[in-house]
C-alpha cells in the first residue's frame, strides 16, 4: 500500500511538478548510474533537489533510490517523519552523532543491498544558489566501499524556484549537469578535493543570470 502510494507520488505528482511546472535542461543524463550500488553527489539549494534527482532515473529504479537526509530536520515531527521515511524513502543521517555510534550505518546497509544513494555533501540547503564547502561524510563512506562509483551532479535554478524558508513555488527552468563518475583513490582529502573540483567544473559550464 505504502509502496503504491510512493510510486504514485513520484510517477504523477513529482513528474508533473518537475517536468511541467518547472522544466529541466539535463546535460549527459546517460552518465547517471544505471544500477546500484552507487552514489550521486549533488549541490543542495532546495527541497526540490531530491525530487528532481529522483525523477531523472527511470521509475522502475524507484525502490532502489534512497536520499540521505538530516535526521534532526526530517524526523522532527511524526507526520513529516512518516512522509520522509515511507514516501520519499530517506535514509536518516544524524548531523551530531553520539560517541561510539556509527552515523553511516544506514548508508552502509543500503549500499550493501545495492541501493543508489543521493547525497548532498554541503550538508544543508544554505544560501540559495551558492556553493558551500563539502562535508567529508561521503569520503568516509566511499573509503568503506571503494568499488562504488560517485557521480557528481550540479543543479541550478531550484534555489530560485523554492529556496529555504519559502513555501511558495515559483516556476523556473532548471539546469542539471551530470559529471563523470569518480572513484576512490586511496585518501580522503584527495577524494574530497576531486569531488569539489568536479562540481565546480560542472557549475562553470552554465551561464546563469544574476539573482540577488
Amino acid at each position, binding site marked *: 500500500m505504502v509502496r503504491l502510494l510512493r510510486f504514485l507520488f513520484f510517477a504523477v505528482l513529482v513528474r508533473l511538478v518537475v517536468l511541467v511546472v518547472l*522544466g529541466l*535542461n539535463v546535460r549527459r543524463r546517460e552518465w547517471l548510474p544505471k544500477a546500484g550500488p552507487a552514489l550521486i553527489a549533488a549541490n543542495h539549494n532546495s527541497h526540490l533537489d531530491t525530487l528532481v534527482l529522483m525523477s531523472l532515473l527511470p521509475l522502475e529504479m524507484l525502490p532502489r533510490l534512497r536520499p540521505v537526509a538530516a535526521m534532526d530536520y526530517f524526523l522532527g515531527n511524526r507526520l513529516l517523519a512518516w512522509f520522509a521515511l515511507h514516501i520519499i524513502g530517506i535514509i536518516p543521517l544524524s548531523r551530531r552523532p553520539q560517541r561510539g555510534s556509527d552515523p553511516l550505518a544506514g548508508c552502509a546497509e543500503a549500499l550493501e543491498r545495492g541501493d543508489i544513494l543521493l547525497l548532498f555533501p554541503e550538508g544543508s540547503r544554505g544560501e*540559495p544558489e551558492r556553493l558551500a564547502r563539502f562535508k567529508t561524510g561521503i569520503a568516509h563512506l566511499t573509503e568503506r566501499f571503494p568499488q562504488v562509483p560517485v557521480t557528481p551532479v550540479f543543479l541550478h*535554478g531550484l534555489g*530560485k524556484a523554492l*529556496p529555504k524558508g*519559502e513555501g*511558495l513555488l*515559483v*516556476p*523556473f*527552468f*532548471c539546469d542539471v549537469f551530470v559529471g563523470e563518475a569518480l572513484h576512490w583513490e586511496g585518501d580522503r582529502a584527495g577524494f574530497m578535493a576531486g569531488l569539489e573540483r568536479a562540481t565546480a567544473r560542472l557549475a562553470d559550464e552554465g*551561464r546563469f*543570470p*544574476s*539573482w*540577488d
Partner: protein
Amino acid sequence: MNWLAVKLPVLVTLGGIFAVLLIASLTVHLLQRRSPGKSYGELRSRVRSWWVMVGVFSLAMVLNRNISLVFFAFMSFLALKEYFSLIPTRRADRRVLFWAYLAIPLQYYWVAQAWYGMFIIFIPVYAFLFLPMRMVTIGETRDFLKAAGTIHWGLMTLVFSLSHLAFLLVLPGAEDKAAGGPGLVLFLVLLTESNDVAQYVWGKSLGRRKIIPKVSPNKTWAGFLGGVATTTALAVGLAPWLTPMDLEHAAMAGLLIGISGFVGDVVVSALKRDLGVKDSGALIPGHGGVLDRIDSLTYTAPLFFHFIRYLYF
C-alpha cells in the same frame, strides 16, 4: 464534420503541411544516403522537431476550441518561464514573478469569455499598475526600474501579444466567414513560420549584404526580401481558402506578416545578444528554446489581429 472543431479548408491545409514535412524528411534522408560521411544530425533533429510541433499544434487546433485556448496559454507559460529563467531577476521579486505568471490564466480566461474590452487592457493597464505596487510592498528599491521594466516587457511580449492568436478563435462573427477562427490562426501561424524558413533559405542561397550586422550577423537583405516576397505570394494563395480577405488585403497581410515577422525575430535576437546566450533554451532539439521558435509571432500576432479585425470584424 461535427466531431471536429474546424472546417474542411483547415484540414486540407494541415494535410498540406504534413505533406511538406514528409518531403523534407525524405530529402534529408536522401542527402544522408548520398554522402554518408557528412553529418546531417542538426538538420535531422530540426525536421523531427517540426514534426512534433506541427503534430501538437494540429491536434490542439482540430479537437476543440477550449483545447486550443489551453494550448496557447501553455505556450505563453513556457515562453514566460523561459524568459524569467534567462534574465537577471531580483531575489526580492519571487512573489512578483508569481503574480506575473497568474496573469496567464486570467488573460486566457478573458479570451475564453470573448471579452474583448478586458482582454485588450488587462495586461497593459491592470497588470502594469499592479506589479510595481506589489514590488513596493516588498520594499526593495535597488534596481527597481530595471525589474519592473523587464517583468512587464515579458508579460507584454509573451502573454499579451501571443494571446492575440487565441482571440482570433473567438472573434465574434468569425464562424460564419470563410474557414472561421481556426482558419485565421492557421493562416497567421503558417505564414509566420514559413516566413522564418523562407528568409533562412533565401539568405543561405543568395544572401550577401548584411541587413542588421550588429544584432544578427546572419541576416541578409536577400533573405529578408526573398522571405517577404515568398510570404506575400503564399498569403495571396492561401487567403481565399482560409480567410475572408480579398486579394488586395491578402497581399497587404502577407507584407505585414513578412516584415513584422522579421522584426520580431531580430528583437528577440537583440535580447539574446544582450544576455550573452545563443539560444533561449534547450526544449526543442535543433531549434533551441520556445522563445527562439515563437519570436516572430510576438510581432505578427497582434499586428495581423488588428489588421483583420479593423477590416472584417
